[in-house]
């Protein structure tokens, strides 16, 4: 510091030395350093929030991708499943899941006794209780798909109940089981012993992304299949409707429409529409598409239409911005060689604006994918256990959607659904990341063409 003060001493002509910063310069530099610090703090806070959010979701949701199964050889007794013995599919279908439950219990009890693991005084019913109620339904589906299995001993992986599954994931302990009416400590001890014997195993849970939702009592069977399909159908509808309509509208407004009071009014309204809360679009969809047009509730077609209305302003605004950013000299060049207005737009302006349009569209789609509020109003929050059919009929079948499924699961009592909801958030985030990555890749690819 003393050096600086000495250096600042004026020379013979009274000019301050360049080697020392004067007071104004020091103040300016300090201000810049402070601003940089604020900036770094802001970025750091943002990153920290993101890390906390993502790690919470990842920790809570990772369990949803693993599932505990009881691996057993089940005797599919002909006497119980096909009394006539001629493998008539209609007769086999008449046997409900209640016909299968005893077979599963029987197989499990036999296995437990074989290994000599039965805790003192534990009933057969309690032993059977470690297998999910949904396992019988899954076994029945399998038999109906392949009636030749009847009469054989078939090796099947049966879902364990949510509590047993929770024990292997650390959600349930022996202590908590004491106070739990859905599971006894004996069942947990038995499951632990079976796991050591290799009968109870934990594997990757494909069912979570393929199977439909399940009821409140069967969290272990709940999956995202219907929600993913529903979201996919809606995105398809949004893409097919919003992209052409949005791009056509913006090209007309930007390149052809005269500038007057009407186009100003339209412009203001588009900007306002982009800011309308999404739930308002839901009410609009309920009033127009369901009550007035009579489209079915909970159907992807209605969801898709509502999300299209929501996405259109985003696409129009980003398309107009990218059309505006094409240098006017390109338009002049095209008109100068005698291209018509439309040729100049479609041959020269649109290709240059394409990366921006694509990015805008994908960001609009990503927004629509994560949208929940309007879907609640059009009935997509319903419990849907059947897959929608293939398009186009499937657009009219009831379906769920990813964000709505998350909302739905967070409402349920069983803590196993918290894990499912976090897992669903991970799936939704993966879709969003994939879409944004696609936007970046497309942008790079198209911009590389000079």
């Amino acid at each position: 510091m003393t050096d600086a003060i000495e250096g600042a001493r004026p020379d013979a002509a009274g000019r301050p030395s360049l080697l020392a910063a004067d007071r104004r310069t020091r103040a300016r530099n300090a201000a810049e350093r402070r601003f940089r610090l604020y900036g770094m703090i802001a970025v750091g806070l943002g990153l920290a929030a993101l890390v906390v959010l993502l790690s919470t979701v990842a920790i809570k949701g990772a369990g949803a991708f693993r599932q505990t199964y009881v691996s057993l050889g089940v005797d599919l007794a002909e006497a119980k499943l096909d009394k006539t013995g001629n493998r008539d599919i209609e007769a086999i279908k008449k046997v409900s899941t209640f016909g299968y439950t005893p077979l599963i219990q029987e197989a499990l009890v036999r296995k437990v006794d074989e290994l000599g693991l039965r805790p003192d005084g534990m009933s057969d019913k309690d032993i059977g209780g470690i297998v999910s109620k949904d396992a019988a339904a899954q076994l029945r589906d399998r038999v109906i798909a392949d009636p030749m299995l009847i009469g054989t001993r078939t090796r099947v992986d049966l879902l364990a109940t949510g509590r047993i599954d929770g024990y292997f994931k650390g959600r349930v302990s022996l202590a908590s089981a004491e106070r739990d009416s859905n599971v006894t400590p004996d069942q947990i001890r038995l499951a632990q012993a079976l796991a050591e014997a290799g009968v109870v195993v934990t594997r990757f849970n494909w069912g979570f992304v393929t199977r439909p939702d399940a009821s409140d009592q069967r969290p272990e069977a709940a999956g995202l299949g219907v929600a993913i399909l529903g979201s996919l159908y809606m995105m398809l509808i949004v893409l097919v409707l919003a992209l052409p309509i949005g791009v056509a509208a913006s090209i007309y407004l930007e390149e052809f429409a005269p500038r007057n009071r009407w186009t100003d009014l339209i412009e203001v309204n588009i900007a306002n529409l982009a800011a309308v809360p999404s739930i308002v679009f839901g009410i609009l969809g309920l009033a127009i598409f369901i009550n007035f047009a009579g489209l079915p509730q909970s159907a992807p077609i209605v969801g898709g239409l509502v999300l299209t209305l929501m996405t259109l302003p985003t696409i129009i605004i980003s398309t107009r911005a990218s059309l505006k950013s094409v240098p006017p000299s390109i338009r002049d060049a095209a008109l100068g060689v005698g291209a018509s207005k439309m040729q100049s737009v479609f041959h020269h302006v649109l290709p240059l604006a394409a990366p921006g349009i694509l990015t805008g569209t994908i960001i609009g789609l990503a927004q629509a994918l994560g949208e929940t509020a309007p879907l609640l109003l059009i009935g997509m929050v319903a419990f849907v256990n059947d897959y929608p059919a293939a398009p186009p009929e499937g657009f009219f079948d009831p379906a769920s959607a990813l964000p709505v499924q998350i909302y739905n699961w967070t409402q349920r009592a069983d803590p196993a659904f918290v894990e499912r909801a976090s897992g669903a958030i991970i799936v939704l985030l993966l879709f969003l990341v994939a879409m944004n990555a696609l936007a970046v890749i497309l942008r790079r690819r198209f911009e590389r063409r000079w």
Partner: protein
Amino acid sequence: MARHAPHIADVKVSARDVNVFYGETHAIKDVDVDILDKTVTAFIGPSGCGKSTFLRCINRMNDTIDIARVTGEITLDGEDIYDRRVDPVQLRARVGMVFQKPNPFPKSIYENVAYGPRIHGLARNKAELDDIVEKALRRGAIWDEVKDRLGAPGTGLSGGQQQRLCIARAIATEPEVLLMDEPCSALDPIATDQVEELIHDLRRNYSVVIVTHSMQQAARVSQKTAFFHLGDLVEYDDTDTIFNNPKDSRTESYITGRIG
């Protein structure tokens, strides 16, 4: 007519009482001018005098500006180009334009030149189109530099090359009049020299109108010169006369460097 006494058959573009308004601004005031065929005509004058505006009237590029309004009569070979029945697109195929800043399309060199002939249906097949492209590039004095890389992007060329490419693109559609709006203002002296030589050659086939800020350039390349000042056409005569024996004091002030 008696003012310049041109041979009537030689007149390519004729303007009478042309006024241009940009909103409230009166940019061009009662301009009368006859532009001759196979002649280079230079428009000179200080910035904002309306020479570019008038140039853009000749191929109706002002149509693309909403607030621009043109009155009066401009004829090409005796036909009024502002007639209601005239499609500006057809007009622009006959009146080509080269702009101040080189503006090649962000496509290949070949595509830049082939675009005009293609949209006007001038070639029946690929071989004919290749011929047209080669001829235009040769006349644009850039063939030797680009013949080995016709597929390379036009935007990758140097400024001077880009401008010659733009000239080749403009002449590929075989226009009758070529309008050049300060074609050398973004170029260095060597590139300028090449473009000027090119303009000299183009005169054999086209009527060329060039707007320029450089009086030396006007003197070098043109046979006729028009001097614009504040939207008025002050003087229009042979280039020699304008530079050596101007009739109007404003012209004299401008070329001697006292105004502008």
